[in-house]
């Protein structure tokens, strides 16, 4: 035993004080997987790449696309002229020109590159360099939302031509320069204006992330914590927590081909059986808002006229009684979800709430791959998920068009592969989606999308639940961090360490 104590003591002596550091430390639940913006697919890579690279178009607070490093003019419905604003220098010292813009998008469009973003810009027919600051994008067909697709970070042409490995050594023209991987799960960036270093470290367990913040080993945390951990952090003297309303749309999806759920009345009864106010107040306790459609009412594509379903077990019971159900003979349904402990908790609450309305749900929880596979195959009655980072209205076609039913992986048929997992089919919605796509005026197409939102809301292939909020927590070592729209890390541009 003495030996053990001696060992412990020597380890203690050896332990050095690690709170003496110059870098600002940002805690993540996942590291970015790809620092080449042409190939990055995960949210963390996108957020980090935004810091390293600049894009020609950006999004404002209401998710409307605005000029990034270039502003545009519509020369014709199929020709956009982009002009670079001011001077932008790559981290290797070269000046960013229209040649770099062309080279970046040509490279995304190059089939050999197999970029996962190719199809979003596949409507580009040709990119013409007019002069070093001006470039024209000529489209195959008109699309009023086109500028919103040009959000890929611009890379230097010369390096693209040399097949430079941007994943290993990113070179952009953003506010931060890549400084290196510091160990297995740590990335360091340097802020160009003052040389301040930022370490992005991965801490897998959310409880441990919170404890590291309290201990001062992490300076900033953003999202990814259970609501009770956020409440716990709020009570700490050395931690500042701020909440913001978000746009991540949580919903319950129905299988519209299911014998029971194909009945609109049943879906309405389910919508009435959920007490969203109670869940938002007691489970979340933040800035979450009840949802009616993909886009919140204050979003430029939002629809103010939609009123969320109220919580009314009486109305639900009345509907179900009319269909022959009763307290003794409740409606039985299965509900699929992932193994995420928070989603399971939500499922248990929904189960309890629906019981009041004579609906018994059987919760089936699977690991993500299995769950997602089942959802795609339509192998479910009800499931719950959320849509993250939806910015443009092409989501309507992807999710609600009858031709967007996911392709069966087991069959060799290369059909359309959308996310209409519930097999929703409304010819009027299909017609409006097609119409909006070919509408060249922005306001006209917005009006059509609002009409689609309304039709979908009436049909209830989804029960819209809520828009999940965002929060960040910072240690008292830093100041000036703010939450950017969409949960980006842009707040780091102005963050300051306190001396």
């Amino acid at each position, binding site marked *: 035993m003495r030996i053990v104590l001696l060992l412990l003591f020597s*380890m203690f002596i050896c332990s050095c004080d690690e709170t003496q550091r110059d870098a600002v430390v940002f805690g993540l639940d996942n590291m970015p997987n790809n620092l080449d913006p042409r190939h990055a697919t995960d949210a963390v890579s996108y957020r980090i790449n935004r810091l390293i690279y600049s894009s020609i178009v950006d999004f404002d607070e209401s998710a409307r696309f605005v000029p990034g490093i270039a502003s545009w003019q519509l020369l014709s419905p199929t020709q956009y002229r982009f002009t670079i604003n001011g001077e932008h220098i790559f981290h290797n010292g070269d000046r960013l020109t229209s040649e770099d813009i062309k080279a970046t998008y040509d490279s995304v469009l190059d089939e050999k590159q197999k970029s996962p973003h190719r199809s979003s810009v596949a409507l580009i027919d040709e990119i013409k360099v007019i002069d070093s600051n001006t470039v024209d994008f000529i489209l195959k067909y008109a699309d009023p939302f086109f500028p919103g697709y040009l959000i890929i970070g611009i890379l230097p042409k010369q390096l693209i031509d040399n097949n430079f490995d941007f994943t290993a050594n990113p070179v952009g023209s953003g506010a931060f320069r890549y400084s290196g991987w510091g160990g297995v799960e740590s990335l360091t960036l340097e802020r160009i204006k003052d040389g301040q270093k930022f370490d992005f470290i991965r801490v897998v367990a959310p409880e441990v992330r919170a404890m590291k913040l309290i201990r001062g080993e992490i300076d900033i945390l953003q999202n990814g914590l259970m609501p009770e951990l956020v409440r716990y952090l709020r009570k700490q003297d050395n931690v500042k927590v701020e909440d913001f309303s978000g746009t991540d749309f949580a919903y319950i999806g129905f299988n519209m081909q299911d014998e029971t759920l194909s009945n609109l009345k049943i879906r309405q009864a389910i919508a009435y059986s959920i007490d969203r106010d109670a869940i938002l107040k007691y489970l979340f306790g933040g800035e979450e808002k009840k949802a009616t459609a993909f886009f919140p009412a204050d979003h430029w594509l939002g629809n103010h006229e939609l009123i969320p379903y109220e919580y009314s077990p009486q109305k639900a019971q009345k509907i179900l009684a009319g269909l022959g159900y009763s307290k003794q003979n409740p409606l039985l349904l299965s509900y699929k979800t992932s193994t995420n402990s928070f989603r399971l908790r939500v499922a248990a609450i929904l189960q309890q709430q629906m019981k009041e309305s004579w609906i018994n749900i059987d919760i089936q929880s699977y690991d993500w791959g299995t769950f997602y596979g089942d959802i795609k195959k339509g192998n479910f009655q009800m499931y719950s998920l959320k*849509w993250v980072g939806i910015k443009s209205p092409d989501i309507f076609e992807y999710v609600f068009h009858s031709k967007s039913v996911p392709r069966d992986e087991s069959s060799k048929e290369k059909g359309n592969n959308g996310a209409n997992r519930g097999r929703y089919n409304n010819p009027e919605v299909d017609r409006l989606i097609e119409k909006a796509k070919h509408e060249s005026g922005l306001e006209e197409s917005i009006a059509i999308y609002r009409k689609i939102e309304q039709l979908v809301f009436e049909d209830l292939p989804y029960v819209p639940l809520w828009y999940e909020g965002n929060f960040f927590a910072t240690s008292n070592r830093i100041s000036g961090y703010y939450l950017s729209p969409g949960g980006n890390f842009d707040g780091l541009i102005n963050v300051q360490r306190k001396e």
Partner: protein
Amino acid sequence: MLRYIGIRFSGALFSIVGVACLVFLLIHLIPGDPVEIMLGESAKAADKIALTQKLGLDKSMSEQFVAYVKGVVTLDLGKSFYKNKPIVDLILERYPATIILALVSLVIALLIALPLGAIAATRKNTLADHGAMTFSLLGVSIPNFWMGQIMIIIFALGLGWFPVSGYSGFSSIVLPAITLGTALSAILARMVRSTLLEVLNEDYIRTARAKGLSESKVIYVHALRNALLPIITLVGLQLGTLLAGAVITEKVFSWPGIGLLAVEAIQKRDYPLVQACVLVISITYVGVNVFTDIVYAVIDPRIRRGSRD
């Protein structure tokens, strides 16, 4: 002896080949598509097809299997789908962390278990025995995810002696190693106690005492040495398990070990990475077992002779 080692190694090789084939089949059989998981909800069909081609997932299972076997034979384990890095680099990055944690935890476990088991055996049915066995029962019963967080709350947040988590410097290994070590020591201590109790009744122990040796010499030199065989079996198994990665402890302490890498690869259906991790883990496990067998033979001549019969 050489023949004995040869037989053990050929058996081990057979196990590894079996594991390598089985893992390829199983990982491809479980539902879930890596492309879907990588691209997420809002990806377009054309992009998914492009990525499927890029990852080589459009090829038939047999073609993929041949490529995999070729890769294993030429020691080219390919690139991780998700991390887009050579798998050899990923494993080389992670394995040192796993080895260090395994060895330090095992040392801690032995340092606790040997004296604790010896005290319990020599003072059978006394307060010391009951105390040691209660400690051991607690060690077995407390799950590592809970123990780890309690250790963090007391020693990192409360006393501020060690960092909460991470892989930076010697101080960061203390809490994960103690968390793992105490759990292992609990089982080991019980084993030490029971085998020592058997040995302590043997004639040669009485002889040693009659020669006038000190009690500690009798216990630690004569008795413990003879009780080593079952203890080595257990230590070997524990070391094998530790080298396969201690997923829960790695997760709690953000320890970048191979266990967490493998589990995350499974969740993301990163086929080549799962295959490589399982291959490395099985080689380690089988290797440790072969090593344990050899140690048996060194310690106990009966085993060596048995192989010649």
